[in-house]
Protein backbone atom coordinates (compact mmCIF):
# COMPACT_ATOMS: atom_id res chain seq x y z
CA UNK A 1 0.00 0.00 0.00
CA UNK A 2 2.90 2.32 0.79
CA UNK A 3 4.33 1.93 -2.69
CA UNK A 4 6.42 5.08 -3.30
CA UNK A 5 5.98 4.75 -7.07
CA UNK A 6 2.19 5.03 -6.90
CA UNK A 7 0.05 8.05 -6.03
CA UNK A 8 -3.25 6.29 -6.66
CA UNK A 9 -4.35 3.07 -8.28
CA UNK A 10 -7.32 0.93 -9.19
CA UNK A 11 -6.96 -2.85 -9.01
CA UNK A 12 -9.60 -4.79 -10.90
CA UNK A 13 -12.10 -2.18 -9.75
CA UNK A 14 -15.57 -3.03 -10.99
CA UNK A 15 -18.72 -1.04 -10.42
CA UNK A 16 -22.16 -2.55 -10.88
CA UNK A 17 -24.68 0.18 -11.59
CA UNK A 18 -28.36 -0.61 -12.07
CA UNK A 19 -28.10 -0.40 -15.85
CA UNK A 20 -24.61 -1.75 -16.52
CA UNK A 21 -21.27 -2.97 -15.29
CA UNK A 22 -18.16 -0.81 -15.60
CA UNK A 23 -14.71 -2.38 -15.39
CA UNK A 24 -12.77 -4.24 -14.22
CA UNK A 25 -10.39 -1.32 -14.35
CA UNK A 26 -6.67 -1.35 -13.63
CA UNK A 27 -4.99 2.01 -13.50
CA UNK A 28 -1.88 3.29 -11.78
CA UNK A 29 -0.88 6.92 -11.45
CA UNK A 30 2.67 7.76 -10.37
CA UNK A 31 3.36 10.65 -7.97
CA UNK A 32 3.52 13.89 -9.93
CA UNK A 33 2.33 12.24 -13.13
CA UNK A 34 -0.34 13.76 -15.39
CA UNK A 35 -2.66 11.15 -16.89
CA UNK A 36 -5.42 11.93 -19.36
CA UNK A 37 -8.39 9.59 -19.48
CA UNK A 38 -10.24 9.45 -22.81
CA UNK A 39 -13.11 7.27 -24.00
CA UNK A 40 -16.61 7.38 -25.40
CA UNK A 41 -19.46 8.78 -23.36
CA UNK A 42 -20.48 6.21 -20.81
CA UNK A 43 -17.14 4.38 -20.95
CA UNK A 44 -16.71 4.94 -17.22
CA UNK A 45 -14.29 7.88 -17.17
CA UNK A 46 -16.17 9.74 -14.48
CA UNK A 47 -16.71 6.54 -12.52
CA UNK A 48 -12.94 5.95 -12.55
CA UNK A 49 -12.40 9.44 -11.11
CA UNK A 50 -15.02 8.96 -8.41
CA UNK A 51 -13.40 5.63 -7.46
CA UNK A 52 -9.98 7.30 -7.18
CA UNK A 53 -11.53 10.08 -5.08
CA UNK A 54 -13.23 7.61 -2.77
CA UNK A 55 -16.60 9.13 -3.66
CA UNK A 56 -17.72 5.72 -4.89
CA UNK A 57 -16.79 2.25 -3.60
CA UNK A 58 -16.02 -0.49 -6.13
CA UNK A 59 -18.39 -3.47 -6.06
CA UNK A 60 -15.36 -5.66 -6.69
CA UNK A 61 -11.62 -4.96 -6.62
CA UNK A 62 -10.18 -1.96 -4.83
CA UNK A 63 -9.03 1.63 -5.09
CA UNK A 64 -5.81 2.58 -3.31
CA UNK A 65 -4.36 6.00 -2.59
CA UNK A 66 -1.36 7.07 -0.53
CA UNK A 67 -1.85 8.23 3.04
CA UNK A 68 -0.96 11.74 1.87
CA UNK A 69 -3.75 11.71 -0.70
CA UNK A 70 -6.17 10.11 1.75
CA UNK A 71 -5.79 12.87 4.39
CA UNK A 72 -8.60 15.47 4.33
CA UNK A 73 -7.75 17.83 1.50
CA UNK A 74 -5.16 15.43 0.11
CA UNK A 75 -7.35 14.73 -2.89
CA UNK A 76 -9.11 17.47 -4.84
CA UNK A 77 -11.79 17.27 -7.51
CA UNK A 78 -12.72 19.70 -10.26
CA UNK A 79 -16.11 19.16 -11.89
CA UNK A 80 -17.36 19.81 -15.39
CA UNK A 81 -18.93 23.08 -14.29
CA UNK A 82 -17.25 25.44 -11.83
CA UNK A 83 -19.64 24.29 -9.07
CA UNK A 84 -19.21 27.39 -6.93
CA UNK A 85 -21.56 28.39 -4.14
CA UNK A 86 -23.59 31.17 -5.83
CA UNK A 87 -24.19 33.09 -2.59
CA UNK A 88 -20.51 33.28 -1.62
CA UNK A 89 -17.71 35.43 -3.02
CA UNK A 90 -14.61 33.98 -4.68
CA UNK A 91 -12.56 34.11 -1.47
CA UNK A 92 -15.17 32.21 0.57
CA UNK A 93 -15.55 29.66 -2.21
CA UNK A 94 -11.82 29.02 -2.36
CA UNK A 95 -11.51 28.88 1.44
CA UNK A 96 -14.28 26.23 1.69
CA UNK A 97 -12.02 23.13 1.65
CA UNK A 98 -9.84 24.69 4.37
CA UNK A 99 -12.92 25.57 6.38
CA UNK A 100 -14.23 22.00 6.10
CA UNK A 101 -10.89 20.43 7.01
CA UNK A 102 -10.39 22.56 10.10
CA UNK A 103 -8.07 25.32 8.86
CA UNK A 104 -9.72 28.53 10.01
CA UNK A 105 -9.34 32.27 10.36
CA UNK A 106 -6.41 34.32 9.03
CA UNK A 107 -4.45 31.24 7.92
CA UNK A 108 -7.36 30.08 5.73
CA UNK A 109 -7.79 33.59 4.34
CA UNK A 110 -4.10 33.95 3.55
CA UNK A 111 -3.96 30.62 1.73
CA UNK A 112 -7.18 31.31 -0.18
CA UNK A 113 -5.81 34.68 -1.35
CA UNK A 114 -2.58 32.95 -2.35
CA UNK A 115 -4.48 30.33 -4.35
CA UNK A 116 -6.62 32.95 -6.09
CA UNK A 117 -3.54 35.01 -6.92
CA UNK A 118 -1.91 31.90 -8.38
CA UNK A 119 -4.74 31.63 -10.91
CA UNK A 120 -4.57 35.35 -11.70
CA UNK A 121 -7.65 36.40 -9.72
CA UNK A 122 -5.97 38.10 -6.78
CA UNK A 123 -7.99 41.22 -7.55
CA UNK A 124 -11.39 39.50 -7.66
CA UNK A 125 -11.61 38.20 -4.08
CA UNK A 126 -15.02 39.79 -3.47
CA UNK A 127 -16.57 38.81 -6.80
CA UNK A 128 -19.67 36.63 -6.67
CA UNK A 129 -19.83 33.74 -9.18
CA UNK A 130 -22.40 35.58 -11.32
CA UNK A 131 -19.90 38.42 -11.75
CA UNK A 132 -17.29 36.09 -13.25
CA UNK A 133 -16.96 34.80 -16.81
CA UNK A 134 -17.01 31.04 -17.43
CA UNK A 135 -13.21 30.92 -17.63
CA UNK A 136 -12.76 32.97 -14.46
CA UNK A 137 -15.26 30.80 -12.56
CA UNK A 138 -13.30 27.73 -13.63
CA UNK A 139 -10.10 29.41 -12.39
CA UNK A 140 -11.76 29.94 -9.00
CA UNK A 141 -12.72 26.26 -9.07
CA UNK A 142 -9.06 25.35 -9.77
CA UNK A 143 -7.90 27.61 -6.94
CA UNK A 144 -10.37 25.90 -4.61
CA UNK A 145 -9.00 22.49 -5.64
CA UNK A 146 -5.39 23.55 -5.10
CA UNK A 147 -5.84 25.48 -1.84
CA UNK A 148 -5.33 22.38 0.33
CA UNK A 149 -2.13 21.51 -1.65
CA UNK A 150 -3.53 18.12 -2.72
CA UNK A 151 -1.27 15.23 -3.76
CA UNK A 152 -3.95 13.92 -6.11
CA UNK A 153 -5.93 16.23 -8.37
CA UNK A 154 -8.87 14.79 -10.30
CA UNK A 155 -10.49 16.79 -13.09
CA UNK A 156 -13.70 15.67 -14.82
CA UNK A 157 -13.87 17.40 -18.22
CA UNK A 158 -13.36 20.74 -16.49
CA UNK A 159 -12.90 22.84 -19.62
CA UNK A 160 -15.53 21.20 -21.84
CA UNK A 161 -17.97 24.10 -21.65
CA UNK A 162 -15.39 26.81 -22.42
CA UNK A 163 -14.31 28.35 -25.73
CA UNK A 164 -11.11 27.03 -27.29
CA UNK A 165 -8.91 30.05 -26.46
CA UNK A 166 -9.94 30.02 -22.80
CA UNK A 167 -9.34 26.27 -22.77
CA UNK A 168 -5.82 26.63 -24.11
CA UNK A 169 -5.03 29.34 -21.57
CA UNK A 170 -6.37 27.23 -18.72
CA UNK A 171 -4.28 24.25 -19.80
CA UNK A 172 -1.16 26.43 -19.73
CA UNK A 173 -2.24 27.64 -16.28
CA UNK A 174 -2.74 24.08 -15.11
CA UNK A 175 0.77 23.15 -16.30
CA UNK A 176 2.15 26.19 -14.47
CA UNK A 177 0.37 25.29 -11.24
CA UNK A 178 1.42 21.65 -11.56
CA UNK A 179 5.08 22.68 -11.83
CA UNK A 180 4.89 24.32 -8.41
CA UNK A 181 3.65 21.47 -6.22
CA UNK A 182 3.66 18.51 -8.64
CA UNK A 183 0.48 16.71 -7.59
CA UNK A 184 -0.53 13.59 -9.51
CA UNK A 185 -3.27 14.63 -11.95
CA UNK A 186 -5.94 12.54 -13.62
CA UNK A 187 -7.76 14.52 -16.27
CA UNK A 188 -10.87 13.26 -18.04
CA UNK A 189 -11.52 14.71 -21.48
CA UNK A 190 -13.30 14.05 -24.76
CA UNK A 191 -10.72 15.99 -26.70
CA UNK A 192 -7.79 13.96 -28.04
CA UNK A 193 -5.65 17.06 -28.82
CA UNK A 194 -6.18 18.37 -25.32
CA UNK A 195 -5.31 14.98 -23.79
CA UNK A 196 -2.01 14.67 -25.68
CA UNK A 197 -1.01 18.28 -25.03
CA UNK A 198 -1.83 18.16 -21.35
CA UNK A 199 -0.70 14.74 -20.17
CA UNK A 200 2.39 12.59 -20.00
CA UNK A 201 0.30 9.51 -20.56
CA UNK A 202 -3.07 9.05 -22.28
CA UNK A 203 -5.23 6.14 -21.16
CA UNK A 204 -8.01 5.05 -23.53
CA UNK A 205 -11.05 3.34 -21.99
CA UNK A 206 -13.03 0.76 -23.91
CA UNK A 207 -16.56 1.94 -24.63
CA UNK A 208 -18.16 -1.48 -24.11
CA UNK A 209 -16.41 -2.76 -20.99
CA UNK A 210 -14.97 0.32 -19.32
CA UNK A 211 -11.58 -1.41 -19.07
CA UNK A 212 -8.30 0.10 -20.26
CA UNK A 213 -8.06 -0.41 -24.05
CA UNK A 214 -4.73 1.34 -24.62
CA UNK A 215 -2.18 3.53 -22.86
CA UNK A 216 0.17 5.81 -24.79
CA UNK A 217 3.11 7.83 -23.54
CA UNK A 218 3.22 11.39 -24.97
CA UNK A 219 6.53 12.82 -26.23
CA UNK A 220 8.27 15.99 -25.04
CA UNK A 221 8.33 17.82 -21.73
CA UNK A 222 5.85 19.66 -19.52
CA UNK A 223 5.01 22.52 -19.63
CA UNK A 224 4.92 22.37 -23.43
CA UNK A 225 7.22 24.77 -25.26
CA UNK A 226 5.61 27.51 -27.39
CA UNK A 227 4.40 26.26 -30.77
CA UNK A 228 4.51 22.63 -29.68
CA UNK A 229 1.13 21.98 -31.28
CA UNK A 230 2.86 22.25 -34.67
CA UNK A 231 5.42 19.60 -33.67
CA UNK A 232 5.35 16.44 -35.79
CA UNK A 233 5.74 14.17 -32.73
CA UNK A 234 2.68 15.81 -31.15
CA UNK A 235 0.61 15.33 -34.33
CA UNK A 236 1.71 11.68 -34.61
CA UNK A 237 0.69 10.98 -30.99
CA UNK A 238 -2.68 12.66 -31.53
CA UNK A 239 -3.25 10.40 -34.54
CA UNK A 240 -2.21 7.30 -32.60
CA UNK A 241 -4.53 8.16 -29.69
CA UNK A 242 -7.40 8.95 -32.07
CA UNK A 243 -6.93 5.59 -33.74
CA UNK A 244 -6.83 3.74 -30.41
CA UNK A 245 -9.95 5.64 -29.36
CA UNK A 246 -11.90 4.78 -32.48
CA UNK A 247 -10.91 1.10 -32.06
CA UNK A 248 -12.09 1.26 -28.45
CA UNK A 249 -15.42 2.68 -29.60
CA UNK A 250 -16.17 -0.12 -32.06
CA UNK A 251 -18.87 -2.46 -30.79
CA UNK A 252 -17.46 -5.75 -29.55
CA UNK A 253 -17.91 -8.57 -32.07
Amino acid sequence: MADPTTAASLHGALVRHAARVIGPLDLTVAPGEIVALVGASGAGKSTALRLLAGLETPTEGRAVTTAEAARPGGTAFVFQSATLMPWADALTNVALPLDLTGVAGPEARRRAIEALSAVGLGDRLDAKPFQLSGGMAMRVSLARALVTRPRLLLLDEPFAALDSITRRNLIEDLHGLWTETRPAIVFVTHDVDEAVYLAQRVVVLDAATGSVAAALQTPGVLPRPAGWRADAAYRRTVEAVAEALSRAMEPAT
Partner: protein
Amino acid sequence: MTRLRALLPPILLIALLLLVWEAACRLLALPSYFLPPPSAVAVALVQRAPVLAASALQTFWMAIQALLVAAILGGGIAVLVSLSTAAERAVRPLAIALQVTPIVAIAPLVVIWFGLDNAQGAVVALAAAVAFFPIFSGVLTGLQSADPDLERLFDLYGASRLQRLARLRAPTALPYALEGLRVASGFAVIGAVVAEFVSGSGSAQGLAWRILEAGNRLRTAELLAALCWLTLLGLILNAAIGALARRSLRDRTGR
Protein backbone atom coordinates in the same frame (compact mmCIF):
# COMPACT_ATOMS: atom_id res chain seq x y z
CA MET B 1 -40.88 56.03 -15.76
CA THR B 2 -40.94 52.33 -16.66
CA ARG B 3 -42.24 51.65 -13.14
CA LEU B 4 -45.06 54.11 -13.70
CA ARG B 5 -45.86 52.50 -17.02
CA ALA B 6 -46.03 49.11 -15.33
CA LEU B 7 -48.42 50.46 -12.69
CA LEU B 8 -50.69 52.17 -15.16
CA PRO B 9 -52.71 49.20 -16.51
CA PRO B 10 -53.84 47.85 -13.09
CA ILE B 11 -54.69 51.38 -11.87
CA LEU B 12 -56.72 52.05 -15.00
CA LEU B 13 -58.58 48.75 -14.70
CA ILE B 14 -59.40 49.33 -11.03
CA ALA B 15 -60.57 52.88 -11.78
CA LEU B 16 -62.77 51.59 -14.60
CA LEU B 17 -64.32 48.87 -12.39
CA LEU B 18 -65.01 51.41 -9.63
CA LEU B 19 -66.62 53.72 -12.16
CA VAL B 20 -68.89 50.98 -13.52
CA TRP B 21 -69.77 49.94 -9.96
CA GLU B 22 -70.63 53.52 -8.95
CA ALA B 23 -72.70 54.09 -12.08
CA ALA B 24 -74.55 50.78 -11.68
CA CYS B 25 -75.46 51.57 -8.07
CA ARG B 26 -76.82 54.97 -9.01
CA LEU B 27 -78.61 53.98 -12.23
CA LEU B 28 -80.20 50.85 -10.73
CA ALA B 29 -80.90 52.69 -7.44
CA LEU B 30 -79.62 49.70 -5.44
CA PRO B 31 -80.29 49.93 -1.70
CA SER B 32 -77.05 50.64 0.15
CA TYR B 33 -77.38 47.59 2.47
CA PHE B 34 -77.39 45.41 -0.68
CA LEU B 35 -74.51 47.04 -2.52
CA PRO B 36 -73.24 50.48 -1.52
CA PRO B 37 -71.42 52.51 -4.22
CA PRO B 38 -67.63 52.89 -3.90
CA SER B 39 -68.13 56.49 -2.80
CA ALA B 40 -70.05 55.25 0.26
CA VAL B 41 -67.29 52.75 1.00
CA ALA B 42 -64.77 55.60 0.78
CA VAL B 43 -66.82 57.61 3.26
CA ALA B 44 -66.94 54.62 5.63
CA LEU B 45 -63.17 54.19 5.24
CA VAL B 46 -62.62 57.78 6.38
CA GLN B 47 -65.32 57.96 9.08
CA ARG B 48 -64.48 54.60 10.66
CA ALA B 49 -60.72 54.96 10.12
CA PRO B 50 -59.65 54.89 13.81
CA VAL B 51 -61.72 51.80 14.63
CA LEU B 52 -60.80 49.95 11.45
CA ALA B 53 -57.10 50.80 11.77
CA ALA B 54 -57.05 49.50 15.36
CA SER B 55 -58.76 46.28 14.26
CA ALA B 56 -56.43 45.95 11.29
CA LEU B 57 -53.46 46.29 13.61
CA GLN B 58 -54.92 43.59 15.82
CA THR B 59 -55.36 41.19 12.87
CA PHE B 60 -51.94 42.12 11.50
CA TRP B 61 -50.33 41.33 14.85
CA MET B 62 -52.16 37.97 14.99
CA ALA B 63 -50.98 37.11 11.47
CA ILE B 64 -47.39 38.10 12.29
CA GLN B 65 -47.37 35.98 15.45
CA ALA B 66 -48.85 33.08 13.48
CA LEU B 67 -46.18 33.49 10.79
CA LEU B 68 -43.44 33.46 13.41
CA VAL B 69 -44.81 30.32 15.04
CA ALA B 70 -45.22 28.66 11.63
CA ALA B 71 -41.71 29.71 10.55
CA ILE B 72 -40.10 28.33 13.70
CA LEU B 73 -42.08 25.08 13.67
CA GLY B 74 -42.19 24.61 9.88
CA GLY B 75 -38.54 25.57 9.36
CA GLY B 76 -37.33 23.66 12.42
CA ILE B 77 -39.16 20.46 11.60
CA ALA B 78 -38.02 20.70 7.95
CA VAL B 79 -34.38 20.94 9.10
CA LEU B 80 -34.76 17.93 11.41
CA VAL B 81 -36.58 15.93 8.76
CA SER B 82 -33.97 16.77 6.10
CA LEU B 83 -31.35 14.91 8.14
CA SER B 84 -33.04 11.54 7.67
CA THR B 85 -35.12 10.00 4.91
CA ALA B 86 -37.04 7.88 7.42
CA ALA B 87 -38.03 11.01 9.37
CA GLU B 88 -39.20 12.66 6.16
CA ARG B 89 -41.30 9.64 5.25
CA ALA B 90 -42.80 9.68 8.72
CA VAL B 91 -43.59 13.40 8.88
CA ARG B 92 -44.70 14.23 5.35
CA PRO B 93 -48.14 12.53 5.45
CA LEU B 94 -48.91 14.27 8.73
CA ALA B 95 -47.87 17.64 7.30
CA ILE B 96 -50.06 17.05 4.25
CA ALA B 97 -52.95 15.96 6.49
CA LEU B 98 -52.60 19.24 8.35
CA GLN B 99 -52.59 21.10 5.05
CA VAL B 100 -55.75 19.52 3.66
CA THR B 101 -57.74 19.70 6.89
CA PRO B 102 -60.13 22.69 6.62
CA ILE B 103 -59.24 25.16 9.34
CA VAL B 104 -62.94 25.89 9.95
CA ALA B 105 -63.41 22.27 10.91
CA ILE B 106 -60.70 22.20 13.56
CA ALA B 107 -61.38 25.71 14.88
CA PRO B 108 -64.00 24.78 17.50
CA LEU B 109 -61.63 22.14 18.89
CA VAL B 110 -58.71 24.55 19.09
CA VAL B 111 -60.93 27.17 20.76
CA ILE B 112 -61.85 24.60 23.41
CA TRP B 113 -58.19 23.70 23.93
CA PHE B 114 -57.13 27.30 24.38
CA GLY B 115 -60.12 28.11 26.57
CA LEU B 116 -63.05 30.27 25.58
CA ASP B 117 -61.50 33.26 27.33
CA ASN B 118 -58.27 32.96 25.30
CA ALA B 119 -59.57 33.60 21.81
CA GLN B 120 -56.35 35.32 20.73
CA GLY B 121 -54.26 32.23 21.46
CA ALA B 122 -56.68 30.11 19.45
CA VAL B 123 -56.59 32.56 16.53
CA VAL B 124 -52.78 32.54 16.43
CA ALA B 125 -52.67 28.75 16.65
CA LEU B 126 -55.22 28.31 13.85
CA ALA B 127 -53.54 30.84 11.59
CA ALA B 128 -50.17 29.19 12.28
CA ALA B 129 -51.65 25.83 11.33
CA VAL B 130 -52.56 27.08 7.84
CA ALA B 131 -49.26 28.94 7.42
CA PHE B 132 -47.23 25.88 8.46
CA PHE B 133 -47.27 23.80 5.30
CA PRO B 134 -45.92 26.28 2.71
CA ILE B 135 -42.99 27.09 5.01
CA PHE B 136 -42.28 23.45 5.88
CA SER B 137 -42.51 22.40 2.26
CA GLY B 138 -40.43 25.35 0.98
CA VAL B 139 -37.63 24.85 3.50
CA LEU B 140 -37.53 21.08 3.01
CA THR B 141 -37.45 21.37 -0.79
CA GLY B 142 -34.72 24.02 -0.50
CA LEU B 143 -32.60 21.88 1.84
CA GLN B 144 -32.78 19.02 -0.66
CA SER B 145 -31.95 21.17 -3.69
CA ALA B 146 -28.22 21.65 -3.20
CA ASP B 147 -26.03 21.10 -6.27
CA PRO B 148 -25.14 17.35 -6.25
CA ASP B 149 -21.55 18.15 -7.22
CA LEU B 150 -21.24 20.54 -4.27
CA GLU B 151 -22.63 17.75 -2.07
CA ARG B 152 -19.87 15.49 -3.47
CA LEU B 153 -17.31 18.17 -2.66
CA PHE B 154 -18.53 18.21 0.93
CA ASP B 155 -18.21 14.38 0.96
CA LEU B 156 -14.68 14.63 -0.37
CA TYR B 157 -13.56 16.99 2.40
CA GLY B 158 -15.31 14.91 5.06
CA ALA B 159 -17.77 17.64 6.08
CA SER B 160 -19.83 17.04 9.23
CA ARG B 161 -23.64 17.15 9.12
CA LEU B 162 -23.63 20.53 10.80
CA GLN B 163 -21.08 21.94 8.31
CA ARG B 164 -23.13 20.60 5.42
CA LEU B 165 -26.29 22.15 6.83
CA ALA B 166 -24.78 25.52 7.68
CA ARG B 167 -22.47 26.01 4.70
CA LEU B 168 -24.40 24.34 1.90
CA ARG B 169 -28.00 23.33 2.51
CA ALA B 170 -29.26 26.29 4.54
CA PRO B 171 -27.93 28.91 2.08
CA THR B 172 -29.34 26.86 -0.81
CA ALA B 173 -32.71 26.74 0.97
CA LEU B 174 -32.98 30.48 1.64
CA PRO B 175 -34.83 31.55 -1.55
CA TYR B 176 -37.17 28.53 -1.24
CA ALA B 177 -37.85 29.39 2.40
CA LEU B 178 -38.66 33.01 1.54
CA GLU B 179 -41.02 31.92 -1.21
CA GLY B 180 -42.70 29.58 1.27
CA LEU B 181 -42.96 32.43 3.75
CA ARG B 182 -44.50 34.69 1.10
CA VAL B 183 -47.22 32.16 0.30
CA ALA B 184 -47.68 31.52 4.02
CA SER B 185 -48.16 35.22 4.75
CA GLY B 186 -51.35 35.28 2.68
CA PHE B 187 -52.53 32.10 4.39
CA ALA B 188 -51.78 33.56 7.83
CA VAL B 189 -54.06 36.56 7.18
CA ILE B 190 -56.83 34.32 5.85
CA GLY B 191 -56.29 31.95 8.76
CA ALA B 192 -56.47 34.74 11.32
CA VAL B 193 -59.76 36.02 9.88
CA VAL B 194 -61.38 32.59 9.61
CA ALA B 195 -60.23 31.70 13.11
CA GLU B 196 -61.68 34.94 14.43
CA PHE B 197 -64.99 34.23 12.70
CA VAL B 198 -65.21 30.84 14.34
CA SER B 199 -63.84 31.68 17.75
CA GLY B 200 -66.30 34.52 18.23
CA SER B 201 -65.45 37.93 19.52
CA GLY B 202 -64.01 37.51 22.98
CA SER B 203 -61.37 40.10 23.58
CA ALA B 204 -60.10 39.78 20.02
CA GLN B 205 -61.64 42.56 17.95
CA GLY B 206 -59.80 42.17 14.70
CA LEU B 207 -61.07 42.89 11.21
CA ALA B 208 -63.14 39.71 11.13
CA TRP B 209 -65.08 40.95 14.13
CA ARG B 210 -65.68 44.27 12.33
CA ILE B 211 -66.90 42.42 9.25
CA LEU B 212 -69.30 40.28 11.28
CA GLU B 213 -70.55 43.24 13.28
CA ALA B 214 -71.10 45.41 10.19
CA GLY B 215 -72.83 42.50 8.44
CA ASN B 216 -75.19 41.91 11.36
CA ARG B 217 -76.17 45.56 11.34
CA LEU B 218 -76.47 45.69 7.56
CA ARG B 219 -73.76 48.38 7.41
CA THR B 220 -72.49 47.01 4.14
CA ALA B 221 -70.28 50.01 3.34
CA GLU B 222 -68.38 49.48 6.60
CA LEU B 223 -68.12 45.78 5.86
CA LEU B 224 -66.51 46.55 2.50
CA ALA B 225 -64.23 49.13 4.14
CA ALA B 226 -62.99 46.44 6.54
CA LEU B 227 -62.45 44.19 3.53
CA CYS B 228 -60.28 46.90 1.93
CA TRP B 229 -58.09 46.96 5.04
CA LEU B 230 -57.80 43.20 4.93
CA THR B 231 -56.64 43.25 1.32
CA LEU B 232 -54.15 45.97 2.21
CA LEU B 233 -52.71 43.82 5.01
CA GLY B 234 -52.24 40.88 2.68
CA LEU B 235 -50.60 43.07 0.07
CA ILE B 236 -48.21 44.67 2.59
CA LEU B 237 -47.04 41.33 3.95
CA ASN B 238 -46.71 39.84 0.50
CA ALA B 239 -44.76 42.82 -0.83
CA ALA B 240 -42.40 42.96 2.17
CA ILE B 241 -41.47 39.28 1.97
CA GLY B 242 -41.37 39.42 -1.84
CA ALA B 243 -38.82 42.23 -1.58
CA LEU B 244 -36.67 40.12 0.76
CA ALA B 245 -36.87 37.17 -1.63
CA ARG B 246 -35.90 39.31 -4.62
CA ARG B 247 -32.97 40.71 -2.69
CA SER B 248 -31.66 37.27 -1.79
CA LEU B 249 -31.92 36.24 -5.44
CA ARG B 250 -30.19 39.39 -6.64
CA ASP B 251 -27.30 38.52 -4.33
CA ARG B 252 -26.84 35.30 -6.28
CA THR B 253 -27.75 36.09 -9.84
CA GLY B 254 -27.18 39.84 -10.11
CA ARG B 255 -30.73 40.23 -11.43
